[in-house]
């Protein structure tokens, strides 16, 4: 319930809501535009384009309304927090790219250790707990659940 929330964390959304409204408006117009390409040959009373069109109209109208009457936003994070968030996304994207070529164990270990660091722990906490978490995940999926994870190249684990 927003009423019970901490009101000091809220800021007027004049900028944020207007940008969001503009993006969603573009999305609605694009969806409307593209939906005209979706036709089926047979005599269906409602073709594949109709429902997306039906949805893009209220989407566009509401987006326009949001630009004209912006509401409130949560306070955006500081620079340091933004860097940590970007760090988490980068590490996870790296993991997604590395897990198939390198195998689960090395890529997960790398990801987990960096993640634990990002969430505020020290190296001497991150290394042992990272190893613990990686090996528990490996045991859980590989043995308890029987879902094989990608192996390291040239090895079967």
């Amino acid at each position, binding site marked *: 319930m927003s009423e*019970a929330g901490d009101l000091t964390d809220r800021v007027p959304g004049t900028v944020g809501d207007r940008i969001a409204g503009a993006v969603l408006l573009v999305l*609605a117009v694009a969806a409307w535009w593209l939906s005209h390409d979706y*036709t089926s040959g047979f005599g269906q009373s409602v073709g594949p384009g109709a429902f997306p069109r039906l949805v893009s109209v209220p989407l566009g109208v509401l987006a326009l309304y949001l630009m004209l009457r912006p509401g409130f936003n*949560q306070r955006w994070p500081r620079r340091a927090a933004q860097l940590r968030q970007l760090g988490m996304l980068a590490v996870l994207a790296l993991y*997604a790219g590395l897990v198939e070529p390198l195998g689960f164990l090395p890529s997960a270990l790398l990801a987990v250790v960096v993640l634990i660091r990002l*969430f505020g722990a020290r190296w001497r906490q991150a290394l042992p707990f990272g190893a613990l978490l990686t090996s528990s995940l490996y045991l859980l999926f590989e043995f308890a659940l029987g879902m094989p994870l990608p192996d390291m190249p040239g090895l079967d684990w």
Partner: protein
Amino acid sequence: MEILAYLAQGFAVALEPQNLFLALIGCALGTLIGALPGLGPVNGVALMIPLTFNFGLSATAALILLVSVYYGCMYGGRISSILLNIPGDEPAMMTTLDGYPMALKGRGGEALGLTGVASFVGALLATIGLTLFAPVLVGFAIRFGPAEYFALFVLAFATIGGVTGGNLAKSFLAACLGLLLGTVGIDSVSSVARYTFGWYELYDGIDFIVALVGLFAISECLVFLENTRQDNRPTMVVGSALPGVRTAWRCRNTIARSSLLGFVAGVLPGAGAALGSFLSYTLERRWLGRRGDFGNGDPRGVAAPEAGNNAAAGGSLIPMLSLGIPGSGTTAILLALLLSMNVTPGPLLFDNQPELVWGLVAALFIGNLLLLALNIPLVGLFARVLRAPGWFLMPMVVMVAFVGVYSLSNSAFDLYLMLAFGVLGYVLRKLEIPTVPVVLGLLLGGQMEYNLRRAMSISGGEWSIIWSSGISVGIYLFAIALLAGGLLFHWFVKRRPAVG
């Protein structure tokens, strides 16, 4: 008495060793997840879905596990509210108002015991209500055609914003965004690829689980990263929970009223547990007014929201099972689980798979007893979990989500898509655009479109079929009434602030 026969059949299913074990695991895990600050039923159940698929469970067993997690989270959410002043989830938010002051006065154990009983009564009442009312609703819904179903979907979307409050335009915007995202992929009727831009990974549509885990779990971690340094929590003396049972008896009227109110709030489409606890607390505070010590640790202020939100959680299962329309984020996930196991909730489910429905109901009764046992004598154990540092818990949450989703599809594309949904969920939360309607839109869009097209092909392209039957007009009127009622209620609450 037909119901009793069905229930007996259900208990036979729920008491099978595997299902009993799953209920126990689910209750314990759910309490644990619910107790962790920031992780609530939506995140908890979302996180369990990939694991459930990996286990290879039957639909009945999977549903029993996830609903036990759901109930468990609802119980567990109170623990961090009371001891840390951090709600474990949105429905537990109202519990902080009187729960934390009670804990500061050294009555933390008592508050936990009291809320354990209140949760039990609320959930039990809702489960009884589910047993009695779901078949009635089914008898009514069996006459629904595609046009009525379309109206029902409109009802679900119209009420989701109006009842839960917040910015109405933003809720509808979120629902439209979700509905549009739901059209991505090959159209099942005409085989036309929509909004795929030549990416064959999108031909099957956006995987619901990927979107869900991204929107809830990944975005939760991004929120958590905003302030990792504030880790100086006071250590609280918990004490025994048993005195709380006696306190609960003194609060029996509050608990009864709140349970009833929460149940009604839960049954309404688009409402859910947060509304249940909000209504119960607000009205109890109004009702007792000066006779209470609300805001400073009044036991009734702790009992009311907990009875209310647990009753609402049970009530919200009714529209999900009997109509196939989820009222909340968590029931949307349960619905998604059933759909992806080729089980279609709705009136026919009660005829076609009674063992699933009644097995689930029986499992809820059993789970409730298990949860009472877990949450009164053993609550200290769960309270200890709160001392686990965030730097270990949050990476664990992310990695379980990542590895779980990857092992379902073996596609790195899904992982990138999940990250994108994580960013989307985070930005939406910062903009105060609710994410639950996005999920509902994504999930229900396909069904809504399908029913619309079926209705239109019956009528031969005549749009008036949408509002031509008495039932569908009634549903539209009900939607308008709920919307107006919600707006009125919020106007009333805002004008005379009772909270905070």
